[in-house]
């Protein structure tokens, strides 16, 4: 019973992901595409929960659903030609897109099939976030501090770029 329910939820989430992803690339209004992108990312967070990665799901909701989607919507709203209904807002290079995407799909399927997955036989830690916090503060302290440098670089880069075009 338990397995069946989780399978049902998985298929439901996959359905939402696939349908909304198709809407993202086919809708005529780019703003509506962005809204469906948010739905896609949200459903992916559900998949993370099903994989017992609660922290990753929280990250997905906070960063992608919360922040990145805001950024995308802002980028769309800041576009000067948004009001121009004459401009086609959908992809005009469908054939090339299909070609590249199927190539990428084949390549990734091939590498997934050929990889020997190193599966750890240990049971999952009881509290994911706690384990992660301990590791972050002990074993991975240097990468953790380097992350802040990377974020600082991103912040300064954003400021420099925004100043140049804004003035």
């Amino acid at each position: 019973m338990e397995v069946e329910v989780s399978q049902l939820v998985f298929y439901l989430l996959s359905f939402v992901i696939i349908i909304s992803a198709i809407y993202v690339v086919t809708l005529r209004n780019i703003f509506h595409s962005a809204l469906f992108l948010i739905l896609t990312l949200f459903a992916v967070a559900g998949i993370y929960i099903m994989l017992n990665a609660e922290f990753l799901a929280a990250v997905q909701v906070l960063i992608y659903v919360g922040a990145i989607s805001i950024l995308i919507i802002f980028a769309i709203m800041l576009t000067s030609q948004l009001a121009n209904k004459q401009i086609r807002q959908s992809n005009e290079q469908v054939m090339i897109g299909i070609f590249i995407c199927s190539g990428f799909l084949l390549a990734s399927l091939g590498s997934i099939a050929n990889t020997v997955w190193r599966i750890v036989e240990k049971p999952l830690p009881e509290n994911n976030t706690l384990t992660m916090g301990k590791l972050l503060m002990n074993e991975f302290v240097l990468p953790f501090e380097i992350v802040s440098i990377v974020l600082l670089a991103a912040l300064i880069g954003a400021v420099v770029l925004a100043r140049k075009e804004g003035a």
Partner: protein
Amino acid sequence: MNEYAAVLIFLFVGIGVVLFTFFLARLVRPSNPYKAKNQNYECAEPPIGSGWIQFNNRFYIFALIFVVFDVEAIFLFPWAVAFGQLGLYALIEMIIFIVILLFGLFYAWKKGVLKWV
């Protein structure tokens, strides 16, 4: 895993309530569409121009800074959960992490991008 069944039920009930309300409204409301109903609402004045306007570029830099500090907040969560078992060392690490990022905020402030002109 099972605790998330409650989340799922909440989600379904939430969507269901909205759909049911719309369905109920469709049953009782009269249908009388005319052009003025689809107009943008601008304090009862006739609207000027389209609702799809170009927003001020300055919003974007705020969004970018928000994303950076959102990522920072993500790193605060596992730290906060594990803090009770880590002690002073972890506190110093996190202070270094935040201070490095505060340099960025200070830089943005000094450069004047936070000022709304």
